[in-house]
């Protein structure tokens, strides 16, 4: 099943969840060509937001990605509160809910380095190009080198166009 990014983003936005799009979808927003199959978001860890997040994602039947079927897993506010990062499969595709990311920290740290974008008919916040480059550099993963090169080329192109 392919991930419906629009369905996932609308669920979060309509549920008034405070979140920032990061990862491959953020890279695509800025113009990267690499394909990605999941949506990565950093969510605010306030108790109110955790409750909104559980309510928004609950109807999408979230389950731990790669886990054997039948585990007594429920993505409710208690589960989210006790955990931090969740890699999920949902009825709308793969969704990673991140309390923190390497090099970037949590929602509060990332918020000033995010920008509003309107995609799939909803307005949400997306990590800025500079911050995305910074966190991918910090992560230092070999698999990110190609997209990092593309993001830096995009940054160069944008500077040249100014």
């Amino acid at each position: 099943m392919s991930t419906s990014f629009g369905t996932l983003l609308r669920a979060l936005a309509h549920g008034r969840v405070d979140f920032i799009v990061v990862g491959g979808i953020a890279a695509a927003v800025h113009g990267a060509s690499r394909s990605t199959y999941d949506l990565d978001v950093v969510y605010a860890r306030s108790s109110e937001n955790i409750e909104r997040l559980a309510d928004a994602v609950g109807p999408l039947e979230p389950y731990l990605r790669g886990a054997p079927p039948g585990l007594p897993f429920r993505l409710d506010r208690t589960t989210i509160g006790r955990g931090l990062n969740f890699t999920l499969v949902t009825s709308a595709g793969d969704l990673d809910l991140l309390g923190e990311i390497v090099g970037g920290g949590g929602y509060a740290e990332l918020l000033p380095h995010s920008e509003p974008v309107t995609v799939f008919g909803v307005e949400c916040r997306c990590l800025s190009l500079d911050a995305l480059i910074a966190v991918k550099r910090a992560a230092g993963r070999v698999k990110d080198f190609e997209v990092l090169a593309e993001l830096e080329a995009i940054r160069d192109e944008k500077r040249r166009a100014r």
Partner: protein
Amino acid sequence: MAALEIPVSFEPDPVIQVYMRDIDLTQVRERLKLTPAERLLMLQQFIIDLEAIRGAGQRQA
């Protein structure tokens, strides 16, 4: 403004510079002409098409 855990660096990374040699700038420039919404729609359509191709391949196997 809250600081990122690591500062945003504008210094070229020699390893990334090597990877940058293979970037097709004509494609980068074309994508930059699109809006963010158009870029994501293109990605979504690519994934749907890929899934259809995979499905067709599995049916033939």
